[in-house]
């Protein structure tokens, strides 16, 4: 975000003593997400034992790796003024499907291919319904979320699908330079999707569509096709995340990744992706992902009951929406 010095931007503040604090708050909210996160991070490093250790940092990164990957594509989805609730179900279904296929064929890549393909198909269905039949994205993906979760249970008969294939366990368990594979993949996603957003016509069109769909259409952008592609890519990445998650826990679990979609969306919104579409930045999304991961990690280190963690996650999401509202006020 660039600093604006335009008069329209200025919200009139009534004369009084609170204007300085309000301005300071607005400043912090608007421009210094990274700054706030770093401050919290440093404070935690000093106050929470074992927090700032290599082992814990790697554990933290691993724990957010799936959220991080899918947050990249969710960023595109939100930037184009859409919404996708089905990613959690896709993660679970892709995991179950890949486990089943690998057990059947004893071939890792067949399992991966099946997972990516299923993700692509579901994403494509989402996109076509939303873009061409013009059904509200929230409702569409709410429906597919239920259906795909159902598919996951049907495929696995409600049981976890254990895998003994060594390649599969090695898939997410291997590491390079001391950093495990899922983290590398997440980093790759950040780099690739960051580049796509900033430097390609695909990324800039996404922002244009989110900023004003009708203007984008009249300017010669194939809006419908773009939206299908955005959902399709989202499905593929969610499928990939599903395989990695299944590999990490060495089984496909039909009830895994519950509430995953909400974590991904909160990470994006925390990272400054506007729910109104049209503005997004990969740096923000990375920070958003790490805020979520850090909160969970610290609560674990402090031995806070898992029940309370729901409370905190909800509070963070709420805070994120309030931040979004503050940021876009007057737009």
């Amino acid at each position, binding site marked *: 975000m*660039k600093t*604006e*010095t*335009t*008069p*329209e*931007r*200025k919200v*009139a503040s*009534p*004369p009084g003593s609170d204007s300085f604090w309000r301005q300071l708050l607005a400043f912090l909210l608007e421009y210094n997400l990274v700054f706030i996160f770093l401050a919290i991070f440093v404070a935690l490093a000093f106050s929470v034992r074992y927090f700032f250790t290599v082992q814990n940092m790697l554990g933290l990164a691993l724990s957010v790796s799936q959220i991080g990957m899918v947050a990249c594509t969710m960023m595109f989805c939100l930037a184009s003024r859409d919404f996708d609730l089905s990613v959690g179900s896709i993660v679970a279904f892709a995991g179950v499907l890949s486990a089943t296929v690998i057990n059947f064929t004893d071939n890792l890549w067949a399992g991966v291919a099946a997972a990516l393909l299923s993700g692509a198909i579901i994403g494509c269905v989402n996109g076509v319904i939303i873009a061409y039949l013009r059904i509200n994205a929230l409702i569409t993906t709410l429906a597919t979320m239920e259906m795909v979760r159902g598919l996951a249970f049907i495929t696995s008969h409600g049981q976890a699908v254990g895998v003994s294939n060594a390649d599969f366990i090695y898939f997410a368990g291997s590491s390079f330079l001391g950093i495990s594979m899922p983290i590398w993949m997440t980093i790759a996603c950040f780099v690739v999707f960051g580049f796509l957003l900033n*430097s*390609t*016509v*695909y990324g*800039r*069109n996404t*922002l*244009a569509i989110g*900023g*004003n769909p*009708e*203007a*984008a*259409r*009249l*300017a*010669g*952008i*194939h809006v419908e096709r773009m939206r299908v592609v955005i959902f399709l890519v989202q499905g593929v990445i969610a499928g990939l995340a599903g395989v990695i998650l299944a590999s990490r826990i060495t089984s496909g679990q039909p009830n895994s990744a519950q509430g995953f979609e909400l974590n991904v969306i909160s990470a994006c919104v925390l990272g400054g992706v506007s729910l109104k579409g*049209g*503005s997004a930045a990969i740096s923000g999304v990375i920070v958003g992902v790490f805020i979520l991961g850090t909160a969970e990690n610290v609560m674990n280190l402090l031995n806070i009951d898992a029940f309370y963690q729901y409370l905190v996650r909800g509070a963070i999401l709420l805070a994120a929406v309030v931040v979004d509202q503050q940021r876009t006020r007057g*737009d």
Partner: protein
Amino acid sequence: MPASLQLNEITKRFPGVRALDRVTFSAEPGSVHALIGENGAGKSTLLKILGGIYQPDSGSLIVGGVERHFVSAASSIAAGIAIIHQELHYVPNLTIAENLLLGHLPHHYGFFRRRDAVRTAAGHLQRMGVELNPRAKLKTLSIAERQMVEICKALLREAQIIALDEPTSSLSHHETEILFRLVRDLRRQGKILIYVSHRLDEIFELCDACTVLRDGHTVATHQSLAGVSRAQLVEEMVGRKIDDIYNYRPRTLGTTRVEVSDLTGKQVTRPATFSVRAGEVVGFFGLVGSGRSELMHLIFGATRARSGSVKIDGRPIRARHPIDAIRNGIAFCPEDRKESGIVPIRSVTENINLTARQRAGWRGFFIDFAREFKVTDRFIQRLAIKTPSRRQKIRFLSGGNQQKVILARWLNLADVRVVIMDEPTRGIDVGAKHEIYNLIFELAERGCAVIVVSSELPELIGIADRMLVMRAGAITAEIARDDFSEHLALSLALPDEQAA
């Protein structure tokens, strides 16, 4: 005692700009006072100060002899001031009665008393001389009628001072007349009316006095418009002389560039057939709802045609989507700049390159930023687009500059052959209008076929080589430049029962 209004030496600064510099403005009861000036002259800021949305840095605001300090919009409303903004605020799914009485609906132990509401609202509407059914939902009304409901709402709050910000910018001729009648009624009742508009004809027709702002200063105040010429007002507004803002330049015409035959759609009910030659500027005139905008959408492929065909340079094209039309060299500047022209939160650069980049670069995927910046800077200079930088978000630009950006988007393409502009100068100040007319002629001189849709007759008379008139979904007449007259065009455009 009706309140008079006085604003003395009002100054308002924003970071880096002095939006208003010791502006003085006063208006008397029972008069319509015009407030004019180019975009960015400070009209909106002044209205916002009057409406309590901004607080002035210095200066005083006196209503009915009492000095006031408005801390919020509510305090301004309480002092009897109503600002009718360009964008209206209403609940589309509620009825007129409910909208009028919103906030104090008649009820009986919490149960809404619809009959009382309708009766009360009907009484108010009648007293104001507005013939509307209080049971009609707002969304079923025309924009003019919605505006009237808004004004009625202000009157219900006992407003003595009513400011109208560009009220006619989206009204048709007929609707404008209805609005004028209401404004004159209010003047008779002794209200103070402040009328902000770009249309000088309306100012002369409706207003008693006029204040001109330029760059945040009061340039002139005319207590009476008698003896004031149009050219004088324009000069005061722009700060320089513009003899003929149209500056019509005759051209030699080429071969037939675009040929439309038997095109029909939802609103264009009768097959539309016409053609435009290379280098020709054809004006389309018609009332709102006559199908003129839809016809343009049909040609551009933005709306699917039911039947008919379009030929460019003799070659038939099939435009199912704007992309197809663009590939065939058609450019389109839509009617509603904000809703369908600009991408407001993106930069000037992105808005200019939006179309060109779809085909540029390696298979239209990677962006050549260096090239885009060069192109943008060139257009900013060539079209004199006023922006602090190419990175500025376009929504902070004035209407005229936004329109220039959209034009630049099309000029950026090398092979544009047909340019369609729907209301190219709506809400744009005189200076920018002049520049846009110049661009239209430049495009025509380059050999483009230019189609201009407008509801401002003087504009079409000023720039078009030929005029086509639409009425009720059909092209009904063609007028050659030598026969242009407002009377003729209007009588052809009005439905039969009103023509007399």
